[in-house]
């Protein structure tokens, strides 16, 4: 009862604000909230660059209105994200909220999206439950269960029966561990141990040593993109590849952003992910070339593609609704099917989540640079987290 009253009064005041602002509304405003500082700053950078690239390529007018991109830094603190989102909705009267580098940031903002009926496009965060937090949330990034489950399907067919999982101790890490474990056990494999590494972890050594002592066929890893390099180095330093332990994981550990700097140690690592810079399609080649040109040679990674596709979804929906907002804009976002630099993808109209191909890739040297070369494709993977 109280909840309904709360939402009603919130909606009333929101409508009042929107109504008073609607008259002056001749712009289509996108509120892009990203972690531009702090440990996840590279995510923010990639997404902003991709968003601006899309705007540069597709013009800044859509549905008859001028597009305004408002970029805000939330320093990865959820209460700040929520306040910024609230201000964007109430003060700037944005048509759509976008960005969200981490799960807690998206979850915190979900009630705002619902109350103000503003579509919220998640371009980076990857925990399954996010799209369920509000009926206005659309995702264009990926979910960890998608990548983990795909790996758990691939591994048993390639001689990997015994695995130790090693993940960072936070939401996406636990998602990755759970979904990999469940599917791997279902496929007849054995998970010897599940280790969790604290987020503020300076040294992987003890964890890797433990894995080594357990002697599995492979180690399944998920760590956020920055830590992947350190992990790989220590993996090699500890002689684990020589001890016959393979390194498998989700693509976050071979993040294109820093892959090239990882050196020889990364070659041969097999990962599962939805995007690789070396994906062999005309659309992707065009995207990568344009991105590198506009950003001094910076290679786009999966964060960038989440941002790029997110903008695409927003633009197309804006075109269809002539720069609309609210329910109409949301409806125009659902069910979009298109070719993204990552491959074909669509936004599931029921779950509002992204459905795309997951590729199994191996790191190889191509023309002197390291790339994740795709060699197997699992088509149209839905988020397993929703099937519960």
């Amino acid at each position: 009862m109280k909840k309904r009253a709360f939402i009603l009064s919130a909606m009333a005041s929101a409508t009042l604000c929107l109504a008073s602002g609607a008259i002056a509304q001749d712009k289509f405003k996108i509120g892009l909230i990203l972690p531009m500082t702090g440990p996840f700053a590279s995510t923010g950078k990639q997404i902003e660059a991709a968003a601006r690239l899309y705007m540069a390529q597709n013009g800044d007018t859509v549905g008859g209105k001028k597009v305004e991109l408002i970029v805000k830094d939330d320093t990865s603190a959820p209460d700040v994200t929520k306040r910024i989102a609230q201000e964007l909705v109430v003060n700037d009267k944005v048509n759509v909220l976008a960005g969200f580098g981490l799960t807690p940031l998206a979850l915190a903002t979900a009630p705002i999206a619902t109350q103000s009926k503003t579509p919220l496009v998640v371009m980076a965060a990857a925990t399954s439950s996010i799209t369920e937090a509000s009926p206005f949330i659309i995702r264009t990034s990926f979910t960890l269960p998608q990548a983990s489950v795909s790996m758990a399907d691939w591994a048993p067919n390639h001689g990997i029966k015994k695995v130790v999982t090693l993940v960072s101790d936070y939401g996406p890490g636990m998602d990755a561990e759970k979904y990999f474990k469940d599917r791997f056990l279902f496929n007849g494999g054995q998970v010897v141990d599940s280790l969790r590494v604290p987020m503020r972890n300076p040294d992987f050594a003890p964890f890797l040593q433990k894995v080594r002592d357990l002697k599995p066929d492979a180690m399944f890893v998920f760590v956020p993109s920055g830590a992947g390099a350190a992990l790989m180095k220590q993996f090699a330093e500890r002689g684990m590849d020589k001890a016959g332990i393979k390194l498998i994981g989700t693509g976050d550990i071979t993040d294109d952003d820093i892959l090239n700097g990882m050196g020889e140690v990364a070659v041969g690592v097999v990962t599962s992910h939805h995007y690789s810079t070396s994906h062999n399609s005309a659309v992707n080649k065009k995207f990568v070339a344009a991105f590198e040109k506009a950003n001094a040679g910076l290679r786009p990674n999966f964060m960038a593609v989440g941002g790029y596709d997110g903008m695409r979804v927003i633009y197309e929906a804006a075109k269809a609704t002539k720069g609309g907002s609210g329910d109409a804009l949301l409806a125009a976002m659902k069910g979009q099917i298109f070719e993204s630099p990552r491959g074909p993808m669509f936004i599931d109209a029921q779950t509002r989540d992204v459905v795309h191909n997951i590729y199994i890739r191996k790191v190889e040297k191509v023309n002197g640079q390291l790339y994740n070369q795709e060699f197997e494709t699992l088509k149209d993977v839905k988020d397993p987290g929703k099937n519960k």
Partner: protein
Amino acid sequence: MTILFDGIAYGMLLFILAVGLSVTMGLMNFINLAHGAFAMVGGYLTVVLMQRFDVPFLVCLPMAFTGAALLGAVLERTLYRPMYRKPHLDQVLFSIGLAFMAVASVDYFVGSQQQIMQLPEWLKGRTELGTGTPWELGMGHYRLFIIAVCAALTVGLQYVLSATRFGSRLRASVDDPRVAAGMGINVNVVFAMTFAVGSGLAGLGGALGAEVLGLDPTFPLKFMVYFLIVVAVGGTSSITGPLLAALLLGVADVAGKYYVPKLGAFIVYSLMLAILMWRPQGLFVRQGGK
């Protein structure tokens, strides 16, 4: 055994990084939270030299030291010196401000992703002793290198402190700057040199640690906590104090994460809390020291 080895390597690295902080805090009574920034400078200097100018790793190390030391000397003279008389809180504010500036500047010039260092071939690799026995010892060559360098530095530092003129001047200034000045010791010069060396050591530590700890613009803020722990537990009145504290913490952290991974980070903090409650002045305090 390998865990012990790893813990010692980690601890020695922490020591080199933190010893400068310990000495400046004990000597100048100045809380310098920007100490991590000097480490970061050393690390980035090394990475840039290696990646863009192909300078060999071994040459980069003394360059990291010198670079950070020079920066320290310059900053000490210009910015830090007026701060000595200010209350601790102002010093905290000041050094945090400096740290912020350093973090943002590095982000601007180099970018915010993790920097990856390519070690020379002879440092990659591993030696295994006694495989299969309970005393199995696997030693990464790089960690061996770290231990060797840090041990040499420690011996060197201890020698300078106890057997040279400068060392005794330093110790005198730590104990009582006014009396030392009264005895004709040029305290300002001592301060400046010590600060420079301390920063230089931090830079060296940053360069050595980039491989093991990772290097990105948020480095100073991330690791400040660990440096402070070493200084708090080890006390500020000697070199051996922080050394033992660093080793203890390094081994405890590594061993804790290996044997009880669920409690991972707890171990270090709880251990520190326990030690500080038992011996609030730090574990190893000289009588009559501060």
